C-alpha cells in the first residue's frame, strides 16, 4: 500500500466524520471504515477483532457462561474441566464467568472515563483554543496543574478516602485524565483558527458554530479519537490497579479484583491454583490492553500524516 493510498484514506476518514455531521452518505461511512481497516497492520487487525470479541463477550456474558459469576457453583479451586472451563476460585465461583462479567467492568470504566474526559476535555479545549482570552489562560493553568499531579499515587489516596464504588472510580479517573485531550484539542483549534481558509470563511460571514462544526470538528475528531483510546487503556489499568491494591469495590466482579483475591491467597504460587485463577484475568487484561494499544497505534499512524500537515506553519 503506497503513501498516496494512506493519504486518500485520511481524507476518506475525515470525510466520514464530516458527513456524519450531515447525517448523510452512510455508504461513505462504511466505506471509510473499510478503508481505515484496510490500512491497519496485521497486529492492528487482530487487535480490532480481539477488541470486538471482548466487547461481544462482555455484552453477551449470560449467554456464553453457564454459571453466575457470584454464585458458588462448585467446590472451591476446581481445576479447568468440562463443568468449569477455567475452574473455580477458593469460594467455588466459576472463573470463566468472572472473566466474562469482569470484562463488563473494565469496558464500562474504560468507555465511561474515556468518553467523559475525551468529550468533556475536548469541549473545554475547543472553547479555550477557539475563544482564547482569559478563559484560555485559565484552562491552560488547569491543564498544567492536572498534568503535573502524580496521577497514580493521587488516585490511591483519593480512592482510599472515597467510597470505592464504580461511580467514584470513574469520577476520579476522569478528573485525572481530561487534561490530555483538552490540551490536544486546544492546540489544534488554536493553530487551526489562524488557517487562511478559516479566515476566509470568517470573512465570508461564517459564524463560530459554522467554523467549529464544519472546519475544526472534522479536523480534531480523529486526533481526539486516538486520545480517547489511550485514555481507555489508562482507565482500565488504573481501575485494575486500584482493585488489585484492594481499593476497588469488593462486591464488584472485575479483573483487578480477581487478581487481588488470587494474589491475596496465601502461598498461591506453591499450589497449581495460580494456573487457572491468576493467569486468566492477567491474560485477559493484557490482551485487552494490547488490543487497545495496537488499535490506537494504527489509528495514530493513519492520522499521522495529517498531524504533520497540521503542524506545518
Amino acid at each position: 500500500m503506497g503513501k498516496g493510498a494512506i493519504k486518500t484514506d485520511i481524507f476518506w476518514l475525515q470525510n466520514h466524520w464530516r458527513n456524519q455531521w450531515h447525517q448523510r452518505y452512510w455508504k461513505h461511512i462504511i466505506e471509510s471504515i473499510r478503508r481505515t481497516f484496510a490500512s491497519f497492520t496485521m497486529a492492528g487487525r487482530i487487535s480490532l477483532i480481539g477488541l470486538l470479541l471482548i466487547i461481544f463477550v462482555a455484552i453477551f456474558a449470560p449467554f456464553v457462561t453457564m454459571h453466575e459469576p457470584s454464585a458458588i457453583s462448585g467446590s472451591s479451586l476446581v481445576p479447568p474441566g468440562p463443568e468449569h472451563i477455567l475452574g473455580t476460585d477458593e469460594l467455588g465461583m466459576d472463573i470463566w464467568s468472572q472473566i466474562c462479567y469482569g470484562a463488563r467492568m473494565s469496558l464500562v470504566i474504560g468507555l465511561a472515563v474515556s468518553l467523559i474526559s475525551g468529550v468533556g476535555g475536548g469541549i473545554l479545549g475547543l472553547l479555550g483554543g477557539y475563544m482564547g482570552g482569559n478563559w484560555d489562560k485559565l484552562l491552560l493553568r488547569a491543564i498544567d496543574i492536572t498534568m503535573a499531579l502524580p496521577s497514580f499515587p493521587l488516585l490511591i489516596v483519593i480512592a482510599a478516602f472515597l467510597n470505592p464504588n464504580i461511580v467514584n472510580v470513574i469520577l476520579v479517573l476522569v478528573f485525572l485524565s481530561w487534561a490530555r485531550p483538552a490540551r490536544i484539542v486546544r492546540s489544534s483549534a488554536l493553530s487551526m483558527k489562524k488557517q487562511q481558509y478559516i479566515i476566509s470563511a470568517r470573512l465570508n460571514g461564517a459564524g463560530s458554530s459554522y467554523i467549529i462544526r464544519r472546519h475544526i470538528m472534522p479536523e480534531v475528531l480523529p486526533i481526539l479519537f486516538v486520545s480517547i483510546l489511550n485514555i481507555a487503556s489508562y482507565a482500565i489499568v488504573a481501575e485494575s490497579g486500584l482493585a488489585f491494591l484492594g481499593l476497588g469495590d469488593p462486591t464488584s466482579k472485575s479483573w483487578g479484583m480477581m487478581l487481588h483475591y488470587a494474589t491475596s491467597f496465601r502461598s498461591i504460587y506453591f499450589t497449581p491454583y495460580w494456573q487457572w485463577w491468576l493467569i486468566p484475568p492477567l491474560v485477559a487484561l493484557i490482551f485487552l490492553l494490547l488490543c487497545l494499544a495496537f488499535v490506537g497505534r494504527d489509528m495514530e499512524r493513519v492520522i499521522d500524516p495529517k498531524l504533520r500537515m497540521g503542524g506545518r506553519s
Partner: protein
Amino acid sequence: MTPLLQINDLSVDYLTDENGGYFRATDRISLTLEKGEMLAVVGESGSGKTTLALSIMGLLPENVSVKGSIIFKGNDLNSMPEEDKDTIRWKEIAIVFQNSLEVLNPVMRVGDQICEPMIKHLHLEEDEAKKRSSELFGLVDLDPVWLEAYPHQLSGGMRQRALIAMALSCQPDILILDEVTSALDAFTKAKIADLLIRLQKDFGYSMILISHDISFLSSLTNRMMVMYAGRAMERGDTDKMIDHPLHPYTRGLINSTPGIFLYRDLWGIPGEAPEGEVPGCPFYSRCTQRIQQCKTSCPDLRPVDIEREVACHLGGVVTLLSASGMNYSYRMPDGKMLDAIKDVCLDISEGEVLAIVGQTGSGKSTLAHMLAGVMGSGFGEVLFKGNRMNGERYGSHYGGIQIVFQDPVNATSSRFTVLDAVKEPLDINNLERLDERIKLVKLALSSVGLPCSDEFLNQFCGSLSGGQRQRVALARALIMKPKLLIADEITSSLDVSTSANVLRLLKGLQNSQGFAMIYITHDLMIALKVADRIAIMERGRIIEIGNSHQVMLHPHEEATRKLVEAKTNRGGLIPGG
C-alpha cells in the same frame, strides 16, 4: 475672442433605409478650436471620429442628416450652400487622410496631384504651383525629385508626407489629420510628429488630430476629447487626462495603448461597442461601475474641474475604497510596541489595479488584512463604496471585498472537495438554490481555467497541486462577484511558470470582470506587469504612490530608487529607456 471653429451639438445620422432607419454616427458633439491650438480626438474605430472630421470638411455622403452647427469664422458651415463650402474646403480647412494608396490617384504623378488644389482654389499658374510644390516638399522633408513619382513608388511615410504637403498647399487655417500615423512605424511616426510640431510652431496652424493612438497624441496636443459610439465621453487637458483619466472608457483606452505604461502588459477593453441606438450610456455594457441609471439615461458632458468635462452619471471613475489613518501595532516579546502600519492612507478606484510593493516585513500583508477586515475594526477609517466599514464582513455578500492569501496549501481546506471549497461562501450565506450553486461553482472554475467535470469537483483540495489550489481559492473568491479583490502575494509560493499563468489569469479576470484589485507583492517587476498604480511600502508606511511607470522611471524616494535599481541591475534592464 471667438474661437476659430466652434461645433455645437453636432449630430450626424446615416440613413440606412427609406423607412427612416438611421445610424447615429455622432451624437451632440460640441467642441471649440482656438487659433493655433492642437486638439486631439481619440476613440476606438467606429466611435465617429472620422464622421466628425468629414462633417467639418463638408464631405459627408448624401444619405446623412446633420443637426447642429459648425461655425467657422462666424459662418455656419452646415447651412452653407455647396459652392461656398468649396471656397472654404482646402483653402481654409484642409484634411490629411489616413495614408493609403486609395487616397492618391494611382495614375497621376504626386506632383500633379499637389498642384491640382492650388490651381483650382488659389488660381495659380501651373509653373507657380510646381514651384510651390517643391517648397512644400522641402517643408515636409521630402526631396522634390519625388514630385515626379507615382504614388505606389513612395513609401508609406513618404506618402503621408506628400498628403500633408497637399493639405498645406493652400495654407489653410485648420488642418484636420485623420489617423495620419496609424499605419506607420514608430520611427516614421516620431518624424511625422516632429514635422507637425514644427509646422504648428512656424506657421501657427490649428490642428485637429484624430487618432486612436494616445501616445502619439499626447506628445502633440494640449487638449483632448475622447469619443465613444458617437458621443464625447471626456474632454480636458491631454496630460492630465492621461495621468488621471476620469471616465472608465478613457482609462480603458489608455490601458490598451502601448507606450504609456512601458512595462505593463496590454489589456483591451472587454466587450464591443453597442450596435445601434441605446437609451442609456453607450458604454454601459462595458463599464465596471454601471448603475441602474446608466442603463436608462444617457449622461451629458459635465464639468468636473477647470477645463475638464466628463460624461458619466457618477462623475467619472468612482473611489471604491478609501482608507485613512490606518494604524496597527504588534506587541513585541519585550513588551514594546512595533508599528506594523503607521498612518496609512490609500484610495482605490473602481476597476483599478493597485500594487502594494515592499520588502518582507514592510507591513504590506498586514495592510491588506486590515482592509479585508481580518483584524476587525478600530485601526483606522475604511470607507467602502462610501459606507464606513466597522469590521463588518464585506465578503459576505455579492459585490464586496474578497481576499486570496499567499499560501496555496492553506488557502483551502484539504478535507474539502473542490466543489465544497468553492461553494462554501454561498453555503455560509445561503445564497442561491442548491442546484444553482453548483452551476455557479462550475462557472467560476471554468473562469479560472480549471476543469468542471464531476470527477474534478469531487476531488479533495489536498490532492491538488499548488497552482491548482490557488486557482480554486481564486474561484472561491470570484464566486462572490467581488468589487474589490485583495491578492496577497498569491504567486510567491508558486514556481515561475505556474506563477506567470496564475498572474495572467488573474489580470485577465480583473480586466474582463472589471473588479478593482489590490495586488500585494514584493516583486516590483510583477507589480509593473499588472498594476495601474503602485504604492511602495517601507516600515509600515506608504512612502510613494503613483502611476506605475512614474514610480518606475522617476522614483522620488531613495528607498524606491534602491528597489528599482536592485531589480533593474540584476534583471539587466535599463531604466528610463
